[in-house]
């Protein structure tokens, strides 16, 4: 979760922060091993 937090929240305080595309968030989950239907952001 620590590594996931870096990718998910690392840019949150920036003035130019823009939410990532859902595919990018899904990739962040995949990158830390959170895969399968439970972790699908699109159902």
């Amino acid at each position, binding site marked *: *979760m*620590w590594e*996931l*937090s*870096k990718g*998910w*929240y*690392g840019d*949150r*305080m*920036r*003035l*130019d*922060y823009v*939410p990532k595309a859902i595919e990018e968030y899904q990739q962040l*989950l995949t990158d830390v091993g959170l895969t399968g*239907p*439970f*972790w*699908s*952001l*699109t*159902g």
Partner: protein
Amino acid sequence: MDRELRHHVYATFAATGSPPSVADLAASMGEAAAGAGLQRLHDAHTLVLGGDGEIRMALPFSAVETGHRVTSGAMAWWANCAWDTLAIPVALDVDAEIRSTWMDTGAPVELAVSGGELSSTAGLIHFAIPAHRWWDDIVET
């Protein structure tokens, strides 16, 4: 304008531990602009408004007291959940102490973040709700 409003909300959380009130925002940017801007940010899942119209969350920050506390020097913030206790030091890029409670034993969680590293990665965070339903009720999540 929403970009500046969003950033102001986050910067206020960071600096004070709490979000700006709707009244404060209305005083600085006008009532209609504040209300409409906050609603757009809420609809975009950029922040979460409570039933009273005030800012309830700007993930990972919570405007209300929770069981999850992050401190850094003289500053402290409430996190919405266990994950957010990790996310706050990341978002702010600060060293921090994390205080929470292990769900299974009730024992206190005592973690530290220093130099961008977490003191221990042992332990589990429980997610009860599938990811695609997190925003069905983000407060419950």
